[in-house]
C-alpha cells in the first residue's frame, strides 16, 4: 500500500503561485469577492504566503530583513489533529495516508478548522458561486470512492473542505491502469500543483518505496516539516533554503 507524500524544495520555489492557481482550477474552489477575502474567506487549498506570516523578532527590521516564501498544501499528517476532534468522522485518514473530507457527512461544527494548527481547512460560508466565464469551465470530474464524493465536484453550503492531494487523479490513474490491464505505478499519479510547478520544486510519490524520489529527498539533511515540534508528523515535507 503506497503512502503518498509531497516534498517541496524551497530552494527551487519562486513563489509564482502557479500551484495555487492550478489547485483552484483543478478542484473547483469557489471564488469570493474581495471584501469576503478580506474576512479570510478566500479558499486556498494551496496557499503561498511570507514566512513567518506574522511579525516576530525573527523577521528582522529594515534593512536587516529576511524574506522567505512558504507554499502550503495540506500537510496530510500521520497524526492529524483534525480527525481526532471530528464528532461524526467526516474527516478521516485513508489507508494510503491521505486525510480526506466527507462532504456528505460534515455537520459544519468547525472543530477541525480550529483544531488544525496549519490552517489548511476551509469552510463554505456561502453557497459556492463562480462568475460566468469560470462557471463554464469547471472541472467536470466527479469521483466517488467508498461511496463518498471525493472529486472536485461542487461542495454544499456549510461544510468544511480541504486539499485532497487531488485524490480524483489517483482514482483516474488507477482506473486507466485497470482498463489497460496492467499494474498501477506510483509515478502515474501527481496532484495538479506538482504537475504545474514552474520551478519544478514539488515532488510527489510513495514514501513507503525506499527508491522513490520523495523518500530520497525526505532523507536529505535539508528536509524539515512545518511546526515539527507539534508531533503531527506531516507527510508534506519541505527542503530548507540554502
Amino acid at each position: 500500500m503506497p503512502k503518498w507524500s509531497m516534498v517541496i524544495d524551497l530552494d527551487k520555489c519562486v513563489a509564482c503561485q502557479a500551484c495555487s492557481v492550478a489547485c483552484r482550477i483543478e478542484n473547483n474552489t469557489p471564488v469570493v469577492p474581495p471584501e469576503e477575502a478580506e474576512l479570510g474567506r478566500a479558499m486556498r487549498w494551496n496557499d503561498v504566503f511570507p514566512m513567518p506570516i506574522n511579525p516576530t523578532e525573527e523577521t528582522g527590521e529594515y534593512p536587516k530583513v529576511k524574506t522567505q516564501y512558504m507554499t502550503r498544501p495540506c500537510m496530510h499528517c500521520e497524526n492529524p489533529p483534525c480527525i481526532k476532534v471530528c464528532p461524526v468522522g467526516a474527516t478521516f485518514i485513508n489507508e494510503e495516508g491521505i486525510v480526506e473530507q466527507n462532504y456528505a457527512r460534515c455537520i459544519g461544527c468547525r472543530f477541525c478548522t480550529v483544531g488544525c494548527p496549519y490552517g489548511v481547512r476551509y469552510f463554505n460560508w456561502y453557497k459556492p458561486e463562480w462568475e460566468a466565464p469560470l462557471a463554464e469551465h469547471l472541472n467536470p470530474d466527479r469521483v466517488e470512492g467508498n461511496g463518498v464524493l471525493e472529486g472536485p465536484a461542487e461542495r454544499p453550503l456549510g461544510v468544511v473542505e480541504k486539499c485532497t492531494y487531488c485524490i480524483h487523479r489517483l482514482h483516474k490513474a488507477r482506473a486507466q491502469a485497470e482498463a489497460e490491464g496492467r499494474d498501477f505505478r506510483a509515478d502515474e499519479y501527481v496532484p495538479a500543483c506538482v504537475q504545474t510547478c514552474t520551478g519544478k520544486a514539488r515532488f510527489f510519490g510513495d514514501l513507503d518505496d525506499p527508491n522513490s524520489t520523495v523518500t530520497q529527498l525526505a532523507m536529505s539533511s535539508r528536509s524539515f516539516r512545518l511546526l515539527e515540534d507539534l508531533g503531527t508528523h506531516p507527510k508534506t515535507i519541505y527542503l530548507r533554503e540554502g
Partner: protein
Amino acid sequence: MLRVSPELKQKLIDPLFTPLDRNFKLSAGVLLALIGWGAVMYIRQVFLGLGVTGMGRPVYWSLYIVDFVFFIGISHAGTLISAILRVTGAEWRRPITRVAEAITTFALIVGSLQILIDMGRIDRLPFTFIFGRLQSPIMWDIISVTLYLLGSVTYLYLPLMPDLAIIRDNLPPGVPEWRRKLYEILSLGWRGTREQWVRLEKAIATMAVIIIPIAVSVHSIISWILATTLQPGWHSTIFGPYFVIGAIFSGIGALFIAMTVIRKLLGLEKYIAEKQYRNLGFIFITMNAVWFYFTFAENLGIATGQQTYEMPILATKLWGEFAPSFWLMVACMAVAFWILVVPQLLPKPKPAMKPIPIFSRRFATATAGAMTLFAALLVVSNFVSVPVAAISGEPIASTILWTLLIVNAILFLLSVSQWLKAHPVSATVIASVFVVVGMWLERWNIIIPTVTHPMLVRYAAYTPTLTEISIAVASFAGFTFMFLVFFKLFPAISIWELVEGQVLEEAQAKVTIAHPEISGD
C-alpha cells in the same frame, strides 16, 4: 387535601393567579419581539449560510461559542445551591433552591441552542447520533450537556411536585380550566402520604449526588474542547478547574441578580432574607479569590515561557487590541471583590461618633466626578485629535491621568463603602452585575484572542455582525422570558422545603441542652 398557611398562600400562590398586569404584558411583549427578531435573523442565516456572521478564516468560532460557554457557566448555580449545599446540609439554601434550579434549566436550554445556531449544517444534527465518534470532545460535550439538561429538568421538577399538589388543592375560585388541569396532571397524584415523602426525599438525595459530578464534567468538557486542540493559549491543563470555578462564580452572580429581582417583585423579603445573601456571599468571595488565582496561574506560564506562538496572545490581552476587554474584566472582578469584602472590614458606626468626611455623599460625588473627567480625558487623548489631546496623549501625561483615575476610583469605592455596608443586598447585587459582566468578558478573552492569533495564518480581527448581535440579544431575552413565564405559573419559593425548614428549626429550638457544670463553685 393539602393545606398551606394563609401567609404563604397569599405570598406565593395568589400572585400566580392575578390577571396579567401592564408591566408583565409590556415586558413579555418586548422580550418576544427581541426573540422574534433573533429567530428571523437565524432563519436567514440557515438559508444564506454562516457567511452572514463576522467569522472567517482563522476566526472559525466566535460570539456564539462565547455565549455558549457563558450560559452553560451560569447554569452551575442550581447545582451548587440545590445539590452541593444540600449534601453539605446548609439549611439556609431552602428559599432560593427554586430560583437556582430554574437558572440551571433555562441557561442550559439557551446555552445548548448556541451550539446548534453555530452549526453549519443544522439539518445534519442527527448525524451526531448516527455517526457519533466518542473520541471527539464535541461528543463528550453533547453527552454531558444532554445528561445535565435531563438531570436539571428532573431536579427542577421533583421538588416542584408537592408544591404543585399544594396549588392544586388551594386554587382560588375562577381559575381557568387549563390551569387546573396543568397542576393536576403535573402533580402526578401527589397526596403527601408518608410513603410518597420517603420516596421523594430518596429521589432528591440520589439526584443531588448524581448531578454534582455531571455538573463538574460539563464545564470541564467545554474547557477541554478548547484545551484538546494545539492552539496557543488554549492547550493548557488548568482549563478544566478554571472553567468549573468560573462557572460556579458566574452562576452565583446570576442567582443573586435573579433572586433579588424576584424578591423585590413578589415582596418575598421575609423569606429571601439577609442570611441568604450573607452566606452565599461568603462562597461568592471565595470563588472570586480562586478565580483571581486561576487567572494569574493561567497566564503566568505563558508570560514566563514567552513562546513564539503563545506570547503574542498574552501580549494582545495585556497591552494589545484585547487590552480594553481584558483589563475591564480584571477591573470588574476587583471592584466586585472590593464591594463584597471592604464593607465587611469597616467598623460599625457608633451614634456618638462624628461622621467621617470620607464616607460622605459629597466626597463620593466629587471622586465620581473626578473619575469621569480623567476617563474622558483619556478617551479624548486616545481617540480624538483635538489640542487637548496633544498634552494628555503624552506618555507622562497619560500615566498621570491613569494614576489619578485609579486613585480616584479607589477613593470613590472607599467613600461608598459605608453605604454598601448598610445596604448588603444592594451591594451584593452590584457586585453580581460586575461579576456576570466580567465572566462574559472572560469567555470572550479566552476564545477570541486565540482564534484571531493562530500559528500559520495572518492575524485577523473579529467584529460581530448584526446577525450575531441579534441572536445574542435574543438569547438573553429568551433566558429572561422563560423566567417570566415560569414564575407566573409556578411558585418562586419551594413551599414545602420552606415549611420543612421551619419545622426543623422549631424542633431544634425545643431541644434544651443542659449547661455544663461549673466546677469549684
